[in-house]
């Protein structure tokens, strides 16, 4: 047992003396959270809306005030001429424009019907659609407000709710994704490199000649990374809760245990890679290319799996992070219990067993 502790202490020295490892380990999650949380958000906010009011009456003023008071738009009322608007779009100084024709108020008051024009930049369809939806919603609300007359005999009111995410917080989906991605990279890549490094330097031979059990070498190598990954997991959770306002709905204990299982899965993969390769570069390349890219694509947090062609959906089943992603979403965001995620848990357990078996088999054959 003492030998074991001595070994683990040595592994910690390795990690803490290697700036690059530390940087990957703790810089990566912070960078990912900041990137996904603030830069790569799919929410549309503070869109500059150029307003050309050729009518300038009470109605247009009221409507413009309503648009301004919503948090989605920054209204730009500079007097751009209607004929120059296309140039503004070409130059990129305008991304969306709302044009009130002359006599807007008059038409509305007396004709009962008025038109306004909404121009959006279709080269960015996502934002364009959002702008159209927002403006439509605001004008509809305004229309109901100014026509207190008899209601239509039949009205269908759609009351929509976004379950599990009532505020429409865009961070919700990617937090589980980032957790899966970071743990995958940290555990798999760093573990595999740490074992292969000993082979490369020749120290593995010394360890194998020592009375230290070869199996224990593998376990002792994995344990520091298990501990550091758990620390990492907690770091991501803290960032998610305090920086991005993502609450944890379900049991933290369950989330912790499931994450531990996923970390062990990744460590097993790392050990498997390290026992089938002989150079740090190969190990790193395999774990980065072989793990990171499929994890990004097939986990489901960037691109919805449901929209992928069938073969890709089938491939996604062998990616461990895909299952972990589902688990975290269920527990953290939906507050579900173990009875909802036992299948995913079982899949991860199965993957761990397979990876560990392969790792151990390869390790043994190297010895004889």
């Amino acid at each position, binding site marked *: 047992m*003492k030998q074991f502790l001595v070994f683990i202490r040595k592994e910690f*020295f*390795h990690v803490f003396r290697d700036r690059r490892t530390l940087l990957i380990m703790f810089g990566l999650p912070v960078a990912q959270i900041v990137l996904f949380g603030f830069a790569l958000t799919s929410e549309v906010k503070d869109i500059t809306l150029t307003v050309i009011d050729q009518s300038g009456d009470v109605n247009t003023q009221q409507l413009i005030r309503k648009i301004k008071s919503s948090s989605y738009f920054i209204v730009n009322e500079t007097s751009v001429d209607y004929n120059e608007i296309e140039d503004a779009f070409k130059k990129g100084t305008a991304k969306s424009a709302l044009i009130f024709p002359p006599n807007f108020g008059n038409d509305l008051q007396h004709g009962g019907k008025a038109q306004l024009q909404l121009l959006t930049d279709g080269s960015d369809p996502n934002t364009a659609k959002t702008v159209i939806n927002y403006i439509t919603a605001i004008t509809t609300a305004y229309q109901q407000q100014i026509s207190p007359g008899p209601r239509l005999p039949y009205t269908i009111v759609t009351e929509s709710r976004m379950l599990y995410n009532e505020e429409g917080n865009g961070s919700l989906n990617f937090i589980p994704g980032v957790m899966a991605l970071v743990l995958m990279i940290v555990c798999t890549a760093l573990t595999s490199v740490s074992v292969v490094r000993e082979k490369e330097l*020749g120290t593995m*031979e010394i*360890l194998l000649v020592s*009375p230290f059990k070869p199996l224990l070498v593998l376990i002792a190598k994995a344990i520091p990374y298990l501990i550091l990954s758990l620390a990492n997991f907690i770091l991501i959770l803290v960032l998610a809760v305090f920086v991005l306002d993502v609450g944890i709905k379900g049991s933290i204990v369950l989330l912790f245990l499931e994450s531990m299982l996923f970390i062990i899965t990744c460590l097993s993969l790392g050990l498997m890679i390290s026992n089938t390769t002989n150079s740090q570069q190969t190990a790193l390349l395999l774990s980065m290319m072989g793990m990171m890219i499929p994890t990004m694509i097939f986990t489901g947090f960037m691109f919805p799996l449901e929209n992928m062609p069938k073969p890709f959906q089938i491939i996604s089943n062998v990616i461990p992070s895909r299952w972990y992603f589902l688990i975290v979403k269920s527990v953290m965001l939906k507050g579900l219990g173990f009875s909802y995620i036992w299948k995913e848990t079982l899949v991860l357990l199965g993957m761990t067993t397979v990876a560990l078996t392969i790792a151990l088999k390869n390790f043994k054959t190297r010895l*004889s």
Partner: protein
Amino acid sequence: MEEKVIVCKDLTKRFGDFYAVNKISFEVNKGEIFGFLGANGAGKTTAMRILCGLSYPTSGEATVAGFNVYKQTEAIKKNIGYMSQKFSLYENLTVLENIEFFGGVYGVPSAEIRKRSDNLVQKLGLTAEAKKLVGSLPLGWKQKLAFSVAIFHQPRIVFLDEPTGGVDPVTRRQFWDMIYEAAATGITIFVTTHYMDEAEYCNRVTIMVDGKVEALDSPANLKAQFKANNMDEVFYQLARGAKRSGD
């Protein structure tokens, strides 16, 4: 009758059709400095790996420190030290941390580790460097430290696989002084080398050619037998008939 610490009889290791080690037999006495010579690919490393318990022989018998290489590899590992041609300490651990780690892995009690490492650091003149990373030391110092670490747990036999590769002549000389000192305390030294002047320092020398032991005697006797002025000539006469070369 001297105590035999390594006994090999018809030891063979075959990979498919290839006999890496072909029926070698020899005995090594306690406290002896036993040189193991041979060109690259002659089978030195394979033989050494079997004796260290890293690899099982195909046939033949061998005991190391009285333990069988087939069944008692764990017991063998407890009784030997090993230093490889590649550098065998951790570069990003300090001198003391390396000593503590390897001492700990071999089960030396903590109090004993502290006492012995103090002595060792003083003896090597590394007091000022004790808390420095091993990676920052010159190669010669590293090799001397690696040897000290290999015998730190006071093994009965220490295996040295080309321990002085790339080291300057002065340091090599000092290194051999350390080997003599260790041998005087009763540790058996089993050393492979490419330097023929180092072969002269050994009590007895084995020369392997194509997986077989072609010569085994003291350097003086070998020189007389092959009518050579030095070990270099002896080696050349034997090795020139080799069919295998390279690793």
